[in-house]
């Protein structure tokens, strides 16, 4: 029996495919041939190892796949959510769009800034201008004048140095020297002087301020001041109607100036119910001037105007003025504050009314 045949027989023997006769023959052959028996044993061991290897390899594969399933559980395809196309696009171009957006923002705002947009906004948001007259321009003129004067007479060098900073208007509310004007006029004032149309000047004290209504009460403390006759005008507490014909006199310059217009709105700047809007030409210096209706009643006090809008001037209502007056503590008054209830202007022509009123209207100079 050659080796190949023997191995073939051994394979059949080991795999149990031999029938009993063959098996006995083969076993006998091995018993008789010790080398053959040895060969059989080796072959058996070798095959065992081969089989063990194969089993183990198979086991390792199974184990690896089990590990794979455990570590990376397979998510069923149906449960994978399909992102909408928009979301996919967004995810892809997120960064690009963010960069683009920030560039756009920078570009927009820098352009706005460069083009002075914000300055315009600032201007329009603070477009209420109080109508006190800045005297600096006047001061310049006066200084120039003084220079000329100095040349003639060097004694008066210092004249005009303490010229007023602001000018405005005020009017008598009580003949014994009580005058009303705007709070913004006398704010930060060192001293206040009143000058009437005849050119007489009196010193005045601030006795009461009402910053919320922008009102201030002055009292003429000067000894040269003589108590006047009762004011020709009265104060109208009730609201006036739209379209009411109104006029004012004030001091936008050093001379008294008449202005005429009509009541255009029942509320003031930004819906302020304590003020009227008037359509009347007013200028810096008109602040504190009385607003009269055609019957010679005071219906308000000029306080300011809206810049950039034509014919939007504002006047504080008389109602607020009267409230303010009644709020003055009694002990701060030197003498009784009496408000005239008898109107002596109602029947007069406008020019006659003005003639009578102008004695009661003062140029307020603030130093």
């Amino acid at each position, binding site marked *: 029996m050659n080796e*190949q045949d023997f*191995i*073939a027989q051994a*394979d059949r023997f080991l*795999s149990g495919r031999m029938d009993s006769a063959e098996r006995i023959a083969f076993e006998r052959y091995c018993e008789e041939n010790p080398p053959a028996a040895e060969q059989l044993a080796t072959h058996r061991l*070798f*095959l065992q*190892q*081969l*089989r*063990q*290897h*194969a*089993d*183990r*390899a*198979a*086991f*390792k594969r*199974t*184990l*690896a*796949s*089990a*590990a794979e*399933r*455990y*570590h990376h559980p397979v998510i069923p395809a149906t449960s994978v959510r399909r992102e909408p196309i928009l979301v996919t696009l967004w995810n892809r171009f997120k960064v690009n769009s963010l960069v683009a957006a920030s560039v756009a923002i920078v570009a927009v705002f820098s352009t706005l800034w460069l083009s002075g947009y914000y300055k315009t906004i600032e201007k329009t948001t603070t477009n209420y201008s109080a109508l006190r007259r800045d005297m600096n321009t006047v001061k310049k003129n006066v200084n120039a004048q003084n220079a000329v004067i100095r040349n003639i007479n060097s004694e008066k060098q210092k004249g005009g140095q303490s010229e007023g900073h602001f000018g405005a208007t005020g009017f008598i509310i009580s003949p014994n020297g009580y005058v009303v004007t705007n709070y913004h006029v006398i704010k930060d004032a060192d001293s206040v002087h009143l000058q009437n149309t005849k050119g007489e000047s009196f010193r005045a004290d601030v006795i009461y301020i009402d910053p919320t209504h922008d009102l201030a009460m002055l009292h003429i403390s000067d000894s040269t001041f003589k108590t006047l006759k009762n004011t020709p005008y009265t104060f109208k507490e009730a609201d006036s109607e739209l379209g009411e014909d109104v006029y004012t006199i004030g001091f936008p310059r050093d001379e008294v100036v008449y202005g005429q217009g009509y009541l255009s709105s029942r509320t003031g700047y930004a819906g302020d119910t304590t003020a009227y809007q008037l359509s009347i030409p007013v200028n810096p210096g008109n602040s504190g001037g009385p607003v009269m209706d055609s019957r010679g009643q005071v219906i308000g006090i000029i306080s300011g105007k809206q810049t950039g809008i034509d014919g939007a001037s504002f006047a504080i209502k008389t109602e607020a003025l009267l409230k303010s007056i009644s709020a003055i503590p009694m002990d701060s008054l030197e003498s009784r504050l009496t408000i005239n209830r008898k109107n002596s202007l109602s029947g007069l022509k406008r020019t006659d009314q003005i003639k009578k009123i102008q004695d009661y209207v003062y140029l307020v100079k603030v130093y």
Partner: protein
Amino acid sequence: MSKLNRSVVPDADLKTVEGIALGNAAVLESLYHDYFPIVLNMVIQNNGTEEEAKDIFQEAVIVLYDKIRQGNFELSSKLKTYLYSVCRRLWLKQLGNQERAFQDVSSYEEVIPVEDDLAKHRETELQLSLMEQALDKLGEPCRTIIHDFYILNLSMQEICEKFGYTSADNAKNQKYKCLQRLKRLFFSTT
């Protein structure tokens, strides 16, 4: 196939052992579910990574498999304790080999001695790696013919058809040559 200490070992463990012996994929997966987390924890706590933990665990399961396949398997403790002990031992060894900072891997888990099993495992591993090398050198189609005949127990006729030999005798000759070559390769390396 195994004598088991029934007082200590839960029935579930016995079923698992049988499953491992048969290479049942579901059993192996449940083995991962039940025991991998504590091994992972042990490795991570002791200077290791998740990948290393996976390798360690896989090797431990193979150790268990070898032990079961040797036929004289006697599970004297819970499967969990056994696997944990093997993993711990393997991890300590790996830390030592790599001269990595050797931290205290002692844990609050119960540990049993597994040195003998590991020694046997290493021996088996060596033997089988020799077989693997021999098979690799053998190349195709010999490797497949040997596998088909001895492992899958296909008949010569089937092999003849599969590989397109003209006759079963040809196939027999070819198989014989392959086997002889494999033996030479295997015994020359041992």
